[in-house]
């Protein structure tokens, strides 16, 4: 039961390709957090519901708690740390801040990654659509109204570019 096998993976994290040997049972989330110390990705439920651990893998928003690190071999992985490599807030992050879309911040990275992936697919023009985009993530603090407005504002911003 405790025997684990090491796998060599090559994965591009926030634009930098890296090789690592990982256990077959290590989740992508634990790999990011423990091995790479990218602790901006948080674990809220570890059963794929809360969305706090959402990262973008090859363009799709995925739950990093439900994916194994070995499955990311050959993939492009984006985490919250990649949204603002220089530390400056991007338009979505700024919209979160302006609209009080976060309080404790624990769920925030997951929301940012889910919405980032959604906005790449196209603009979000109305409230219902925004709520739909947000519905895969749970926030216990804000009551979502700031998040809804942040998505709409960010969509306007990116739409106009």
């Amino acid at each position, binding site marked *: *039961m*405790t025997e684990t096998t090491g796998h060599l993976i090559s994965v591009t994290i926030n634009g930098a390709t890296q090789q690592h040997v990982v*256990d077959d*049972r*290590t989740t992508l989330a634990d790999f990011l*957090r423990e091995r790479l110390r*990218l*602790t*901006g*990705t*948080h*674990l*809220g*439920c*570890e*059963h794929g*519901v*809360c969305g*706090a651990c959402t990262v973008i893998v090859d363009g799709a928003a995925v739950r990093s708690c439900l994916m194994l690190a070995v499955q990311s071999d050959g993939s492009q992985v984006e*985490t*919250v*740390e990649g*949204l*603002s490599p220089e*530390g400056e*807030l991007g338009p979505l*992050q700024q919209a*979160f*801040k*302006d609209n*009080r879309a*976060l*309080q*404790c*911040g*624990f*769920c*925030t*990275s997951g929301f*940012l990654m889910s919405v980032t992936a959604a906005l790449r697919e196209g603009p979000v023009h109305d*409230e219902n659509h*925004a*709520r*739909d985009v*947000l*519905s*895969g*993530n*749970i*926030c*216990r*603090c*804000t*009551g*979502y*109204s*700031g*998040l*809804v407005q942040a998505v709409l504002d960010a969509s306007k911003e990116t739409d106009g570019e």
Partner: protein
Amino acid sequence: MSDHAGAVKGMIGTSVARREDDRLLTGRGRYLDDLELPGALAAAFVRSTFAHANIRSIDAEAARALPGVIAVYTGADLMEIQKPLAPKVTHPQLRDHPRLPMPPRAVHYVGEPIAVVIARTRYLAEDAIELIEVDYEELPAVGSTAAALAPGGPMAHEGDDTNIAVTLSQSAGNTDQAMRDAPHTVSAEFTVTRGGGHSMECRAVAARHDPATGQLVVWDTTQSPHYARQQLSTIYDMPEDDIRIIAPPDVGGGFGPKAQFYGEEVVIPWVAKKIGRPVKWVEDRSENFVSAMMERSQTHRIEVGFDDEGHLIAVRDHVEHDQGAYCAGLQVPSITTSTVPGPYHVPNIHVELLACYTNMVPTSSVRGAGRPQAVFAMERMMDRIAEHLDIDPALVRERNLIQADEFPYEVGITFRDGSPLTYDSGDFPALLSGTLDRLDYPNLRAEQAELRAEGRLVGIGLACYVEGCGLGPYEGAKVRLTNRGRILVTLAAAGQGQGYETVYAQIASDALGLDMAYIDVTTGDTSKIPFGQGTFASRITATAGPATYQAAQQMRERLTETAAILLKCHPAEITFVGDRACLDGDTDKAKTLLELAQVANVGKHGITLPKGVRAGLETSAYFAPERAAYASGAHAAVVEVDPDTGGVTILKYVIGHDCGNVINPKLVDGQVLGGFAHGIGNAMYEEAAYDADAQPQAASYLDYSLVSATEVPDVELFHIHTPSPLNPLGAKGAGEGGTIPAPAAIANAVEDALRPLGAPRINHAPVTPARIVDAIEHAAAT
């Protein structure tokens, strides 16, 4: 979205952006599991799988032999720390069963920790757990308060002859006589189900012992670091100065369960000390579902007496309260008993509460803390009175509300802080009328009648409440000019996302007359401020707020006095321009904060201070309110029900809120709206179900529904501000008001919607589609 009437000058009352946000938005937050703890081992707990059992034996040999496992301790291996975790709030008549950190002999709920594995990684620790064999003698279990009180039923604790832990009662007037004489009476039974706090970050504890200094450093996601330190000091028999509790700078939500004290918080630091290496335990969600404290489950049998116009004459409420397996404290049931009368004149009241032991996770405060249940009972009855008399439910409320000129208002019973329940200030009629105005209430009722004529089931639900908040005993703040020339505000209180780093800089800025750019705030570290209570019961703004204000005012005196001596003028002539203390605003005749620190703090070794300068620019203040403050509000829900599916659509929701003066209006909005989302969960979705054997039936988010953005409706939020006279800021609490009346408002709206179908009764929260369909079918059959 929201409108705050009444502006306040200065930084207090301004919606400044949060200082916390940038790090949280860029993945640079520092939550407990993110902290670098070189060499830290991982801990995992073996938890009881039975709700009630004796432990015959635990075989951990195979687990201990597993490579990577450092140690396994059962409860019996750590007898030196098996001391009771004392109830937070107790009562002389409480029959207390000791809650041990890791009980060696018997378990009383599923999820109770019975052994801990320390291993190189959490993966290995969980492997080891699989190898541990526990031999249980299963005992009959109590899975509800009904079972707890059933004659001849099982006992939650072996050897007991009753499951009642304590009976609490509150009385004013002569309820029996008044009820007999009342022209009308109605009665009903309401139940509210268990639910959890569900902070997105679960609990976590890490610890490191330094044998050289004897100090034990404990990182803890607690809302109450000083409370945790006091408990550990008692249990470990160590001086408090040798225990440093640090609530990390970022904690992922609290909502009550993290204000409690748990066995894991005792075990982890002790084990770290024993092993001589740092140990970290991070609760996973599966554990959180069965070990973090919950709340809410109560049954109310309530009777009200009233006159022909709906004026309340008497209220009698008999409450069954689920205390869980142990009494972690009586704060929740005692708050319930004092919240029943709410914003109304209730001349005669008797509330009796039986707190029952059951074999479920102990209960304690969860955002709302005993208030949602009381409000549910009372506000449902206000609607039943209206129905009985065939008058409008808004009118029944208006006729009973305490008026704005009646404060301070003595209710005649006692609050949980031990003081007479005395409402400090408020304007309940303005909250209700403001809410009704935003609904366009008379037209809405007309519209409802038209829709009903078309066969549509649309209902309107109202709920008013009064919330005791800002509790004592005290909270403190230290203000220091650091040697680098910045003002540092140190709070004992620990934040979980409320924005303390921002809010307390705003308060200090006004008191100092100094731009908040020069002010930093630090929180939640027992080594930095000696005394504190913690973040709970919507109390911090009304306690740490005034403490910060007063300490910062003292600091202003110290700074201007020092600058005046150096500039050879009078302190009253000093004002701040940027970080310069200037004579008459002249920046050329000025001393910077850094220069003041150089003189009064750093000094020159062996050289006398300038005449009159007092050494050490540090001040502190502890604010102890004379009694609780009372926030208040009114909620209104408009819903449509689909009678075939029981589905509920919220068409409109209005919140009127009064938490006195506010420091940062947008952050208050965030508290109210976030609390409201929790309230919608309680009203319609969240249910920590247990079966008859007290086995949890909803222990993942697949079975326990948290609301997402698609379930929480838009809210029209407005505020009024009746300042509290009990503290210099006029502040009250804002953390729970959004949650408290939401289940009552939704249930009232659903029952109102269903009234054309033979008045089905909605007596249970959450109001789920299944319960609605059951109620419709029951009404049709009778």
